[in-house]
């Protein structure tokens, strides 16, 4: 058994007086796909934002790819470059074309030659089937196309881990499918993924493990089949009965 690529131990986090994450323990091995679900306000997003330190945790350890995240971490940018993230609101850069959105970070963070970065970007855009939109601006694309571009942009950094923060929650039902398709094919390619989502169909299809969170705690963590077939805690059963 290989070393886990993400290791979280006894992690606690507060927003002011309010404790959002309580005693989180989580290990994710390379190439595993984890789906995190739970009611809103349960700390799912905060948890994955802690993994690339968009949020700071106050207690406990988070180790990503052998690097501990703490105030002392100097090269946080280097770690973030290894961890791709896709947001609920896409967060594309509206002043740059789709292609420039994808090449910006590889050129300036990874110091990749411009031509190489563009080839890579077109390749990634092709995988999510929007290479024909490369010269348009984000504002001209539909929500689904924007989100696929955001996935491509994150992949252009060739990350080891991909984090998805409710990637389909802001989309029309019709567009959800195209984004999920892109994510499924990414999962089949062997990427390590942590996905916060309410799409249980997606979880059943690709996830190795499902984590259920409520009130800042991990209530249940189980293999996907096990999770859906016989959930252990009553809270999980209630949640599943409501959304399935």
């Amino acid at each position, binding site marked *: 058994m290989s070393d886990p690529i993400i290791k979280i131990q006894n992690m606690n986090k507060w927003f002011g007086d309010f404790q959002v994450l309580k005693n989180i323990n989580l290990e994710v091995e390379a190439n595993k796909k984890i789906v995190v679900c739970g009611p809103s306000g349960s700390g799912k997003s905060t948890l994955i934002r802690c993994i690339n330190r968009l949020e700071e945790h106050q207690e406990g350890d988070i180790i990503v790819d052998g690097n501990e995240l703490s105030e002392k971490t100097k090269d946080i940018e280097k770690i973030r470059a*290894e961890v791709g993230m896709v947001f609920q609101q896409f967060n594309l*850069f509206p*002043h740059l074309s789709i292609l420039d959105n994808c090449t910006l*970070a590889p050129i300036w963070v990874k110091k990749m030659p411009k031509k190489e970065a563009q080839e890579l970007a077109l390749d990634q855009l092709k995988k999510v089937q929007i290479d024909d939109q490369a010269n348009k601006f984000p504002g001209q694309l539909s929500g689904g196309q924007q989100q696929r571009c955001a996935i491509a942009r994150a992949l252009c950094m060739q990350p080891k881990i991909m984090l998805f923060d409710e990637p389909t929650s802001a989309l029309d039902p019709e567009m959800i499918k195209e984004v999920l398709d892109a994510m499924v094919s990414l999962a089949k390619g062997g990427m390590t993924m942590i996905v916060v989502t309410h799409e249980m169909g997606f979880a059943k299809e690709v996830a190795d493990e499902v984590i259920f969170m409520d009130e800042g705690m991990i209530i249940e963590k189980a293999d996907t089949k096990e999770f859906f077939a016989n959930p252990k805690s009553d809270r999980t059963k209630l949640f599943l009965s409501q959304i399935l």
Partner: protein
Amino acid sequence: MQTINFLKPNRDNIKNYSIIGSFLVLVSLIDVISNAFLKVNLTSFLPGSLTTLFPLIIGLIGLNMMRIDYSGNKKLDLLNKNINTNNFNALLTLLILFSIIKALPQSLSWMIFDATISGDSKDACTGTGACWTYIKVWFRRFMYGMYPNEFHWRINTAFILVIALGFVGYFMKENLKKYLALYYVIIYPVIAYLVIYYLISGGSFGLQWVETGAWGGLSLTFIVSFFCLIFCFPLGMIFALGRRSNLPAIKYISICYIEFWRGVPLITVLFMSSVMFPMFLPEDFFMDKLVRVIIAITLFEAAYCAEVIRGGLQSLPRGQYDAAKSLGMGYWKMHIFVILPQALKLVIPGIANTFLALVKDTPLIFVVGLAELAGMLALAKTNPKWLGFAMEGYIFASIVFWIICYAMSKYSYNLEAKYKTER
């Protein structure tokens, strides 16, 4: 109520009503115009005060007859929506129109028909109108101040050079574009300074030295505005970023700086820079008064710029910061490539505002003895040979400032349109 209903149109008869209505308004306008321009009272047959009120009453009835919610006629709708929404607004519209018409003949005859422009001394101005001769004779002073006449070409050449250098960005090759910001923020001001120093100040290359005390007029307005604008923007940007910094030292220094300069009036800053500041300098250290004034105004306006830019930074959604960070960008890369390009776009109107205010604040440097355009006017109007022409001078200065400021605001609109992006 019957009469009012009688005057109220509906969609079927609006055509007739609008014809009668516009005829009545026309009659009222003709009456006022003939009164103002031809001094003929068309309604002298009416008794007393009624003759003065006649155009107003007729006009109001006319506008009332034209007023309808939706007529289907685009022009009529536009008119009703903008100047004829109710009786009160119709009254205001008419009053404004009438006062413009009333004021027009006098001002036109003063400014143009009765004005003098020939001759080259005060004696030429005998008429009742404006004396543009005054502006003509003093024109060079208003433009160049006390700068010696035979060297005016030096100022002109320097300005042409500086403007030409400003356009270099347009012709830069594609692969050099990334140095554009560097050029405008650092290289360009330095070159411009050297050009202005060597050409206008002189002292070397066989050019005679002209001290800054002799500089003045519009050219000084331009020099002061130019350097203040070009320096206060980057400085403001630094303080805007500083105020949002996570490092307490930088944050509080920025806050102190901004609050200090926003709290003191510009006029005291100018006095300090010219009177108090030299006292703190070492004996053998000399800094020209003009330079001190430019630095003072720059520091002052940078505080305002900083707050405008901070507004732009705050209006960006947090997601933009998150996305840039998640791609591994550090503070500077994130700001240079993602945050500032978007934020600066948003603050173009605010920055234009600050810059216009700056240009119009430059006349204040007169209090420390530097006579730019408005300052030269103040000097000229006290010249014993030319007493009594302050009005002409101030009108001239207003027109010049208006042209400069209007050009700047037009340019800012263009920039806004050029860099507009959809969200």
